[in-house]
């Protein structure tokens, strides 16, 4: 992790690189060819579709000129943003808690965290319908306890979508944060404490900057995955579950309008790719703020 050490490794390696290079290059070229054929080509095809017929931008302007569609775009990013924030707010303390357990407890925590990932998303959605419905378990308990007098409308709202997606994506946020935490040299924390920082001060000034890369990585993955969710908003969101993936589905499946569907897909991709440099730059700068590189 110290610059000098890293470059030292490089120098030592260079003596036996030549033989390796050919094998590596071969494999890399093979992989690149696969990526080119199965990723770039279809992507180019989508760009082509979205601009046709005749290199028009009409498909894109249509997204923003059709009444209601800008709201769908907004809703998409709002749900993605909300889910990212909520998974972070729950995920960071959770990762922090796991990090501070002893080994057995830690393994148990990880099993509890990861087992839900093995359940299909459809099963989870159906369970949420049962839990959140007007006659569902949560509403009935609250009614019986006289907390509420009318059942809460949770199912078929944006809240239900955010709850279900957060539940699904939480492990994906926790794992990278935990990975960052586990790389922290605990003596740094002791040093901070001995220099007079309180528990909270240590967390804020030392731990948090050091796990920033994990937080950002988790955030990006969760955000991007959220943008691709289709079934959950559709099943649990009712009218508030309208997001770009549903629109894409409608245009492909119901209306067979591949051009507009391609334009919508491209919009999603462009926003995500456009966000990356900013986020990555932030990671780099926050990394050096931590003082250790």
């Amino acid at each position, binding site marked *: 992790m110290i610059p000098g050490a890293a470059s030292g490794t490089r120098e030592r390696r260079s003596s036996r690189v030549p033989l390796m290079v050919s094998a590596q290059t071969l494999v890399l070229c093979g992989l690149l060819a696969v990526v080119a054929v199965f990723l770039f080509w279809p992507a180019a095809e989508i760009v082509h579709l979205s601009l046709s017929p005749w290199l028009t931008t009409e498909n894109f302007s249509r997204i923003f000129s059709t009444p209601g569609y800008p709201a769908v775009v907004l809703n998409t990013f709002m749900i993605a943003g909300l889910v990212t924030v909520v998974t972070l707010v729950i995920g960071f303390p959770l990762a922090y808690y796991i990090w501070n357990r002893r080994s057995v407890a830690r393994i148990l925590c990880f099993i509890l965290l990861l087992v839900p990932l093995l359940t299909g998303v459809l099963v989870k959605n159906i369970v949420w319908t*049962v839990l959140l419905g007007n006659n569902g378990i949560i509403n009935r308990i609250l009614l019986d306890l006289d907390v509420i007098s009318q059942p809460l409308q949770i*199912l078929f709202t944006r809240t239900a979508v955010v709850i279900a997606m957060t539940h699904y994506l939480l492990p994906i946020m926790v794992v990278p944060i935990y990975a960052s935490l586990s790389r922290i040299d605990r003596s740094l924390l002791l040093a901070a404490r001995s220099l007079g920082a309180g528990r909270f001060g240590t967390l804020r000034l030392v731990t948090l900057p050091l796990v920033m890369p994990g937080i950002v990585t988790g955030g990006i993955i969760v955000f991007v995955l959220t943008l691709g969710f289709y079934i959950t908003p559709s099943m649990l969101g009712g*009218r508030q579950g309208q997001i770009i993936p549903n629109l894409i589905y409608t245009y*492909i499946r*119901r*209306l067979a309008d591949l051009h507009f569907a391609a334009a919508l897909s491209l919009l999603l991709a462009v926003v995500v790719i456009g966000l990356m440099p900013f986020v990555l730059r932030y990671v780099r700068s926050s990394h050096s703020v931590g003082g250790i590189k």
Partner: protein
Amino acid sequence: MTCRRIFTSHEIVLPALALVAAVFAAAYMPSSSAASDSASGQQLIVAAFGGAYGKAEQEAYFKPFTKATGIEVRVLPAQPSLAQIKLQVQSNNVLWDIAELGPWDTYNGCRDELLTPVDYQLVRKSDLAPEAGTRCGIIASLYTEGIGYKKSMFKTPPTWQDFFDVKKYPGKRAMEKYLQDGTLEAAVVGTGVPLDQIYPLDVEKAIAAMSSLGSDLILVDSLAQASQLLQSGSVVMIQTAIGRILPLESQGYAISLVGQRGPSFFTIPKGARNTTVAQKFLAFITSCKECTATMERMTAYGGPNKDGIQLVSEERRKLLPYDPEVQKNTWAPNLEWWGENAEAAQEAFQRFQVTGH
């Protein structure tokens, strides 16, 4: 950890090779085998929907066809759509001899020449039930829709006007997002428009009616979800199809048959490898009374033969879309109208979902 470190060593070689192999395997797997079998002419490849409905199709159409002609039918539960056919036709690689499509897809596919017209020299028009045949499709089924409800809560079967009257019947109700099942038509009927004046459909009027229900209207993704809401008591009425309510009859649920008569068509994609056999299949199911009767017995959905209905029980006949009483209370979708206006209607409906009006 430096970048170089990640890419050295044999660690990466094996997974990489595995990936390459997997990709090639995936690329070679499904389509080519289906295509070569089909070319031999002894097999009919049908893309349909599967499930309990698929089982009924198997018994009603595919098994009898194989028995009569010796031609094997291979059913792919492919959830076929016009978009898929469009891609297959454009890439000159049509995988299906018969594809089951909804009414919009059938009409639009015919208009855009992605489907082969039915050969009415072979298919006897005189055998067809009403609404059972169009230029490019013969129905696999014609299903009656309506309002699902709990019997004990209603003195008389509800109408669409009741559906949109929250004062008379308080509580939430569920409708489908899937416009092909007649969601907008039902809303217009709910405002009092007579059945023969539904078209040209006033989309804004339909949306205003749905909007007036406010949060009492729940839009669901599938009929299964609607049934679930009804059973859990979350809603008092649902827009649904007869096939969904019959299994719940013993639990005290019923359907008021006042909705759309929704067709699902067997179609032949343009450039299908076995067009001749496909036409033969359409001719066979049209002329086979027992086939239609089997479909009607198993699902309460109508089949293509007009006389099949005579082979089913009196009780079942009353539920079929060909029954005079049912005909009077239900409507057939106007596919010409939808062919022209589907995109605009869908956009308006999308707007309603997002903005609430």
